[in-house]
């Protein structure tokens, strides 16, 4: 635990220092810790869903395999690559902030947003496909094999709940980046003050990691369970 320092130099001069912090270092540490704590809550939030997934996949493994094999592995795979690339560009945006490179911040943030939007567009196409094929849970759900109809509907319930909440996190992330972009454009971030970019980066990587778990659990188990 670092002792708060009373550093008159930075305290008096940096416009981004809030009144209740002693110096920028303390402010930076606080926001980073705050974001990590928030990510812990996010882990618990998705944890509830993963728990439901584990229970039901154990109970209905055949139905989950059947349901999974109707998801488009190609589109899911493309989306995985897109998201990993967006994490890279996000990391580069953080680096640009830390090195006071304003143009870099703008370019990499725009790239990250473009990749995030690509992900969402692809996801939208996938959802549309599910609507067309009556794979959305509810009264209109259809499944050729009547004997598996109920548990496959459970698989799709989880699919929509998990990917839907993930997509919602993506949308929120894009909103945050819009805000960052505006401030980067106005030259707010530099080597002294970059914590908004850094903690947003943490958030974005987290959303990426959630997808890294979702992709195999939802898209690939069909192939996996078929071999066992």
């Amino acid at each position: 635990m670092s002792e708060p320092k009373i550093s008159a130099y930075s305290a008096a001069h940096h416009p981004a220092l809030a009144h209740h912090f002693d110096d920028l270092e303390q402010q930076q540490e606080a926001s980073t810790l705050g974001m990590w704590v928030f990510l812990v809550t996010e882990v618990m939030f998705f944890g509830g869903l993963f728990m439901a997934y584990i229970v039901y996949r154990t109970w209905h493994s055949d139905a989950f395999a059947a349901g999974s094999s109707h998801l488009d592995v190609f589109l899911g795979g493309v989306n995985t690559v897109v998201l990993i690339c967006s994490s890279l560009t996000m990391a580069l945006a953080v680096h640009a902030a830390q090195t006071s490179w304003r143009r870099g911040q703008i370019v990499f943030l725009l790239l990250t947003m473009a990749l995030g939007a690509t992900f969402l567009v692809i996801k939208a196409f996938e959802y549309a496909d599910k609507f067309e094929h009556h794979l959305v849970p509810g009264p209109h759900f259809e499944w050729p094999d009547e004997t598996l109809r109920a548990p496959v509907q459970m698989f799709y319930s989880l699919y929509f709940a998990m990917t839907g909440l993930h997509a919602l996190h993506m949308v929120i992330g894009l909103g945050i980046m819009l805000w960052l972009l505006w401030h980067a454009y106005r030259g707010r971030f530099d080597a002294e003050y970059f914590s908004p970019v850094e903690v947003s980066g943490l958030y974005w990587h987290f959303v990426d990691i959630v997808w890294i778990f979702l992709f195999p659990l939802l898209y690939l188990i069909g192939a996996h369970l078929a071999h066992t």
Partner: protein
Amino acid sequence: MFQNLPLFPAQASGFAGDVDALYFFLIAVSAFFSLLIALLVIVFAIRYRRRTPGEVGAGITGSIQLELLWTIVPFGITMVMFVWGAWVYFDLSRPPRAAMEIYVVGKQWMWKVQHPDGRREINELHVPVGRPVKLLMGTEDVIHSFFIPAFRTKFDVVPGKLTTMWFEASRPGRYHLFCAEYCGTKHSAMIGWIEVMEPAAFQAWLSGGTEEGSLASRGQKLFNDLACQTCHMPDSKGRGPVLDGLFGKKVPLRDGQTVVADENYLRESIVNPQAKIVDGYEPLMPTFQGLINEEGLLQLIAYIRTLGPQAPATKTAPAQPESQR
């Protein structure tokens, strides 16, 4: 006024004494510690009351010995409670093999009871004194809980599975039956009576109304109506597994595991046939979810239990044509 103020429920089952003994033990421990704390607080508060405005307390900060004492002593006492409580709980949750079975279905907002001999009742349950009774319970809709205070036992009925509870009534009389798990608008009207009778009176009551035939025979009718026998043939030529002598056996599954064919397995195999596929068979059976209500499921299970050499002979179970091989 005090005639109207009961402080203790009637004891009418084998468990009641066990549970009450545990209760009194906990009351004794609680009373001891509550009074000890209360006494110490009052004595200290009076003895060490502030006499002058500027006074401060003694410079005591703590004592490892005392901390250890009041960590270890409560630990020891609670472990006694744990072991004793678990002991009673095991008793409560393990019905004896010889128990007579009664089938119960909860439904918003009534309890429907079927005796194996065919007698049905609603919001009442007649049981003989001195004989272990096992209830096999399901629900048509939401969670309910079958609660008999005088017997000190209850258990939930949960949608999607069968649950069991058991008791041995020890005193004839009429006792409350409550639904203990909130189940909607008329939750507090989902109540009834447990009628504990002398064995002879119970037998007389039981033979009072069997016009519909036994549970198993109704199950057999359902079995035929649903055309189950087209696949589940008594010889192994059928597309489905042989059911004769199945109940209570270990069944090998396609994924290499085995499962004991108990009531819950049978129920699951009817409503969700794909969940556990028997080794050597194809997953062909359609689900019967929605086609049979919970009472029908219990009748089918009662019927399947009577099939084959292993089944206990029930005198009212009519001979099964296919089983006469």
